């Protein structure tokens, strides 16, 4: 199909789709007039019932924990795909001389990753108390690894981008989630039932076994994102190595 025919076919189709979407949205309650009931029910029952103050995280890892397991495996499959396509295609691992020579960047480079990792861990740990959780914190931790590459260079970063370390960690995150689910089955309860009691609301001891799911997701997301950046950084570095012989 030529480019022009494609656009001629596309524009009316998109116009119809846009009109259909607007027509459909006109039938749902006005913005700001959410009718529920699920959101209202969860907002009322989550804190008394599960002793957690962050209802979003309670939804993610407790009420909809099974759905999150599926999401985790989409993530796992996508990362596996990237690894299958890219790993090893950059040639043997060698090092490049890209050491950062600016003192100020080196100082920031030493500090920023530590801060990012610390903030990430904090976001994960307090996931059931204040805004945060495994997904958000995991990404923040992974950004620490990327900051190390950006500010300190390939050589400083390269021990981190080690698949022998990252692959088992990612497996631990994905597998750990399922194991927590299976632990409930073994003790005679439905899959992913929250074990060991609800804990104390508003403290780090809240969430019960959903707190373990939170940490499993954090490990999975952090490892997955570091693996992704590793694979792309290797692709970026490979031609530089070749050019210099």
């Amino acid at each position, binding site marked *: 199909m030529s*480019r022009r025919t494609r656009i001629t076919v596309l524009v009316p189709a998109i116009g119809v789709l*846009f009109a259909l979407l607007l027509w459909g949205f006109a039938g749902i309650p006005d913005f700001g007039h959410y009718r529920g009931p699920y959101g*209202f029910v969860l907002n009322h029952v989550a804190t008394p019932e599960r002793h957690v103050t962050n209802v979003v995280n309670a939804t993610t890892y407790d009420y909809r924990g099974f759905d999150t397991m599926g999401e985790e495996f989409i993530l796992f499959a996508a990362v596996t795909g990237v690894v299958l*396509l890219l790993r090893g295609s950059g040639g043997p691992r060698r090092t490049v001389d890209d050491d950062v020579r600016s003192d100020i960047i080196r100082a920031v480079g030493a500090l920023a990753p530590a801060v990012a990792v610390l903030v990430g861990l904090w976001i994960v740990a307090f996931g059931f108390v204040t805004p945060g959780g495994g997904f958000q914190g995991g990404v923040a931790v992974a950004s620490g690894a990327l900051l190390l590459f950006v500010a300190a260079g390939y050589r400083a970063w390269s021990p981190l981008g080690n698949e022998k370390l990252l692959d088992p960690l990612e497996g631990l995150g994905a597998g750990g989630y399922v194991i927590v689910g299976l632990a409930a089955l073994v003790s005679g309860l439905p899959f992913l039932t929250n074990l060991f009691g609800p804990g104390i609301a508003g403290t780090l001891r809240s969430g019960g076994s959903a707190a373990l799911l939170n940490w499993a997701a954090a490990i999975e997301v952090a490892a997955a994102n570091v693996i992704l950046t590793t694979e792309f950084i290797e692709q970026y570095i490979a031609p530089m190595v070749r050019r210099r012989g």
Partner: protein
Amino acid sequence: MSYLPYAVAAWICVVGLYGIVTSRNLIHLAVCLTVTQSSTYVLLLSVGYVHGGGPPIFKGVKLGTTSVDPVVQALSLTDIVVSVTVLALILALALDVHRQAGTVDPDEIAAMHG
């Protein structure tokens, strides 16, 4: 004005679709796909918004305070993270296409295979 956020979601969706179909570069195409996908976040979060509602977090807030829907937030936050990894997969495929075909223009790739 009360439908404006929904209209924005619909607009983001079709703009992304237009970009996907008319794209001349696979990387641009992948970005357009994420634009389309982002329309679902705008829609979900607008559906769950309650006028005057606070965040669905009750640390130091009295239980029963009007809050927005936590379910749509949970859906959006997991999907944002998952969509990044899927984007990485698409970019890896684009890299592979570039290696095999020497171009990232979808039209040229189609032309090569007749």
